[in-house]
Each structure stands twice: as C-alpha cells, then as structure tokens.
C-alpha cells in the first residue's frame, strides 16, 4: 500500500536553492506543509525561505525529524537525489523533476520497491491532502477539503478538474499526480486500493491520457469488484495523432495501443462514468455522491 501525507508529515526539500525549489517551498510552507529542512549539495549551512539547508539528508536528519522528501533537483542529478531519500528511509519520495532518463526511473522504482518506499512521479505535480499539507507544485486555491480523491497522470488537467470539483462544493480529500513519464512509481491501481480503504475519500476522479495501458488495467481492477466507491473519469487525447508524443514523454499512441478510445471504452465497460469535458467529471461525481 502506498504511503501519502497529512498535516504532521515532516518534509525535506531536495534542490531547495534552485528557483523552482525556492518558489514552491515558499508556497508549500504557506499552505501549511511542515517543511523542516532543505538539501542542496554545496549549500549546507545557509538558509532558504527560513529553512535550514544541508549538504546531505544524513546531516539534515541529525538535527531534524524527517518523514518524506520532495525533489526539485535537475534531471541529470535526480536519480542520485531520489536514491539518497530512499536510503534515508524517507517515504513518500515525490519527484517533481521532468526529463529524467527512463533508465534512471527504472532503477529508482526498482530500488524503492525493494525498500518499500512510495515514489510519486517522476514528472509529477506531487500530492496534496486538501486543507492540511501539500508536497507538490499544484496551485493551492483550487483545492478545498472534501470527499473526492483524485488520481491523475497529468498536472494542469488535474488542477482543472479539481477546480470544478471544488466549485460544485464537493472538495477533495487526497489527490495524487502519478506523473507523465512512461515509467513512474505509482499506478492508478495502487492509489485506488488506498482510496478504497481511506475513510476520508467517498468518491474518486480518475484522470488519464493517451499512452500505455494503465487506464485499461485500472478498468480491469474496478470490474473485478475490488474498488467499490463512486468513480468518474476523464481521458485526454481524443484529438491526438498516433506516433507523436503529446508533451509528456509517456503520452504517445504506439500502433493500436494507448489510444484515448481504448481507455474510454475500457472504463465505460467497467461502469465508470467518463466525461466528454473535464467539467463533467465533477458533475458526475455530484450525481453519484
């Protein structure tokens, strides 16, 4: 079962001194996330946004209790940073970095699995527990504490749908961005399992896109009866052309595999309400709840 966050989760930011790291540390702090330390090799001893910076996680842990890590480190160094977090027993490890080589992601996911660590991403907007804590880059204002859990492969489309859910007064519980790369730590199924057991989640929005077969497998899982809560979905990429990568490294229709149609059909067959417009996901959930 994956491990997510709440208001008590103590977080280290790896790559805190970079422009994105600094910017989002500020926003996460404002949201209420307990950021206790930052790590940037060579910058140990300084402060960033009022947070002490260390050269290594090991040193940060000598003076701070840390549970989880969020990574803004540039792609060439991201695998090292993530393995450092895994080795330091931090969980979850949220990898925001985009552009990590697939080979590095394969290594990371395999090592994390041995260790039982939850990897969120790479190339993810992160995760949020509405009203409590966010480890990610999502705009806080679109989320409001409520009953809907969200799982998404994309970032901005996830905020789009969250905003609709909030506007209809439903609000969100825990929301997880899986990441847009071909190889990521979490699958829809992992998060669905967690949502099934989460008392704060009453319904789920599943946001998929072209490429791979994670949505089809989620549909199979739902059909199997292991997920019993109301669920609505949106799949991006109906207008996509085969063979072209649509922005995300993982968003590509290869041959007959990975098309939006195949995913939409699989989910509909599993009894999931699939919207033609992103806003319809929220409307469907309101009906279902």
């Amino acid at each position, binding site marked *: 079962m994956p491990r997510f966050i709440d208001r008590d989760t103590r977080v280290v930011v790896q790559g805190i001194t970079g422009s994105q790291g600094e910017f989002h540390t500020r926003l996460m702090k404002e949201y209420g996330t307990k950021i206790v330390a930052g790590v940037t090799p060579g910058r140990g001893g300084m402060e960033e946004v009022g947070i002490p910076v260390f050269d290594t996680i090991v040193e940060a842990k000598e003076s701070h209790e840390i549970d989880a890590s969020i990574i803004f480190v540039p792609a060439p160094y991201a695998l090292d940073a993530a393995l450092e977090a895994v080795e330091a027993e931090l969980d979850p490890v949220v990898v925001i970095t985009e552009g990590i080589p697939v080979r590095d992601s394969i290594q990371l996911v395999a090592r994390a699995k041995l260790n039982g660590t939850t990897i969120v991403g790479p190339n993810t907007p992160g995760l949020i527990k509405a009203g409590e804590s966010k480890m990610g880059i999502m705009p806080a204002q679109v989320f409001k504490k409520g009953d809907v859990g969200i799982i998404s492969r994309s970032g901005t489309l996830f905020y789009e749908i969250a905003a609709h859910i909030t506007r209809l007064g439903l609000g969100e519980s825990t929301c997880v961005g899986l990441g847009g790369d071909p190889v990521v730590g979490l699958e829809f199924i992992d998060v669905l399992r967690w949502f099934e057991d989460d008392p704060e989640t009453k319904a789920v929005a599943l946001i998929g896109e072209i490429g791979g077969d994670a949505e089809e497998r989620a549909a199979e899982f739902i059909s199997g009866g292991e997920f019993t809560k109301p669920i609505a979905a949106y799949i991006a990429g109906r*207008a996509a052309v085969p063979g072209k990568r649509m922005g995300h490294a993982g968003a590509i229709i290869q041959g007959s595999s990975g098309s939006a149609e195949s995913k939409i059909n699989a989910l509909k067959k599993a009894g999931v309400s699939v919207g033609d417009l992103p806003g319809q996901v929220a409307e469907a959930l309101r009906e279902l709840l």
Partner: protein
Amino acid sequence: MKLLEYEAKDYFRKYGIPTPEGCMITDPVQARMFIEKLGKPIVIKAQLPVGGRGKAGGIQFADTPNEAKNMAAHMLGKQIKGLTIEKLYVEEKLDIVNEIYLGVTIDRRNKSHVILASSEGGVEIEVVAEETPEKIIRHLVDPVNGLRSFHANLIAKRLGFKGRKMRQFADFVMKLYSLADEMDAELTEINPLAELEDGFIAADARLLVDNNALFRHKELEDKLLSSLQGELTEREMEARAQDLTYVELDGDIGIIGNGAGLTMATLDTVMLYGGKAANFLDLGGGATPERIEKAVKFVLRDTRTKAVFVNVLGGITRGDHTAQGIVAARQELGSVKPIVVRMAGTKEKEGRRILKKAGIETLDSMEEGAKLAVKLAEGS
C-alpha cells in the same frame, strides 16, 4: 533519437557485437573501392531516418566494381519518403542460413527492460506479434540484478540453439543488452540477425536513444536535430530548434497550453465544439515570459491559424509571466489575429491585470474559451 544504421553499427562494434564488414560512403567511387578491396558481392543501403526503405528501393545489391559504382550513383540524390539520400552504407553480402529477430526495449507496464527474440526474423516484429505471438520470446530484465548469462542462455535455448551456437547467441544477447542499458536505448533491435554456418552477425541495426539521456551521450547531442528529419514536419523541426514542445495538426486554431494533459484536453474540447486545432503546443512547467513570447509568436506566425487559444492554469507556470509573454509577442508582431486567453492559478490576478491593460480579455473556463476560439476562427 533515432540513429542511422551506420551510426548504430559503430556502437554495435564498440560493444563487440559482430557486424558485417562495411563502410559509410557519400561518393559512388567509394563503393567501387570498397567492393574491390572486399572481393565479394555487396549490399548498398540508403541511410535515412525512415522505415520501409527496402520496399522503396533503398536496398540494392552489386556483384562487380562497376555495378557497385553505378548503383551507388543511381541511389545517391534520389528521394525516399521526401528525404534525399546523401549517405549510403556498403557492406558485404552475407550467406544467411536463417534470419532471427533480437531486440531490447522498455516495458512500461513492468517498469523494466524487456528482451524480445524470435525465430521469425526478417519480417516486421509487429506483424509477428499480431499473427503468431507465440513465436516471440519475451524476457523481462530484473532492474536490480540486470541480465545474467543464465538468462541469456535460456533465451538462446528457447530459440532452439544448442551447444556452441547457444553460447554464441547468448553472448550476442548479453552484448546487445549492455548496449541498450549503457546507451539509454528506448529501443535497439537487430532484424535480421543473421545465423551463419559458424555463428551470428547483425545484418541490420536499429538504435533509438532516450532524448532525456543525451546529457550522458554528449557526442549525440549535435546530431539530434538532423535525426528528426522524416519523423517531424518542417514546422515541427523549426519548433524543435526553438526548444518548443509542438505537434502540427491540420486545423486552423492555434492552441497553447501549459502541461501536456491540459493542452490535450484543450484540443479535445475545441474538437468537441466543432473546431479543429492547428497545433498542440505545451509550454511545459515554469515557462518564463520569454518562452511564452516565443511560443505565442510561433503560433501567431503560422499562416494557417485564424485564432489562437492560450489556456494556462498555473502551478509552476505563473499568470503574470504568461501575460507578459502574450503581450510582448503581440506587440512585436503587430498581429491582429484574435487571441483568447483562459487563465487561472498561480499569480492569476496579476496576469489578468496585465492582459486587461493591453486590451486582451480573459475568460474563466476552458469550455468558454474553446467555444469563443471556434467562433472567432469561423468568423474570420
């Protein structure tokens, strides 16, 4: 990044994978010199980053020096799928006993490398997968332990090889996997991998390197753009040179979004309202005002676009930056094409203020924006 056959074979040799004797040429005289030195019939292959060259006449044979020179002269400068043949690869013709397929690629579902092997070489592996899937051997590589020799032996065994041939083929598999792993290959394949009387040899070579890994393979970085010819349209090549994530489509509404999912959903929504997108342009995360300006200019300059829809929902991308970029692009081009902007999220208020000052109205929802963009494109 797709390497040409001769480039891939250079890497194959580096990893000790047997390849036929051959060389890349650009002049017909070199073909004659090669066959004279070799003293055997040769095959002449067009070096282009597109598939299906065989059917298009891109693979020819020659038995004598004169034939080689004439054939090379005939091929150079000809076009296949819109690309001009500038390079040829000349290589000894093999006495093939049997054609095998061997490839290494990424298995998304299992999050690992997968080795694919089949006794049905020489035909497209997709066709084999479709018609006789039982003839493909799949071996998932454990990312922690890697591929070990006993795995390779087993693959060779399952293909039906015994004794010395089993060891030879297993060695081939080990070397190809090392290359795939160390070269960050999205795909490397040999089709056909030729079985000879006394061993195996890579008659063809394909190597696709993960673009995200080029920082580890500096020698390839310069070749990236030229490797995309044939795969990308002219406009996509230009976008690529400007470092924009762009896919050309055939409609008349320019689409710019931030984030792949939202941009795709924007295309889908425009389509749902009866419009057609001219492109997909994903600003990615954290775009600066300069990057946004560049993107808006790129889409505005496209003569096919009748209206532009910018859909930005800020996380890492800031509304103020987006607005600055749009305003700057419009001013600099003096463009009168209608621009519809939908903005929400980080620094939204600041962004809207900047756009309002410049006389550009913003809409609250993607649906409204898409509808308006479709209407404006129809009306112009």
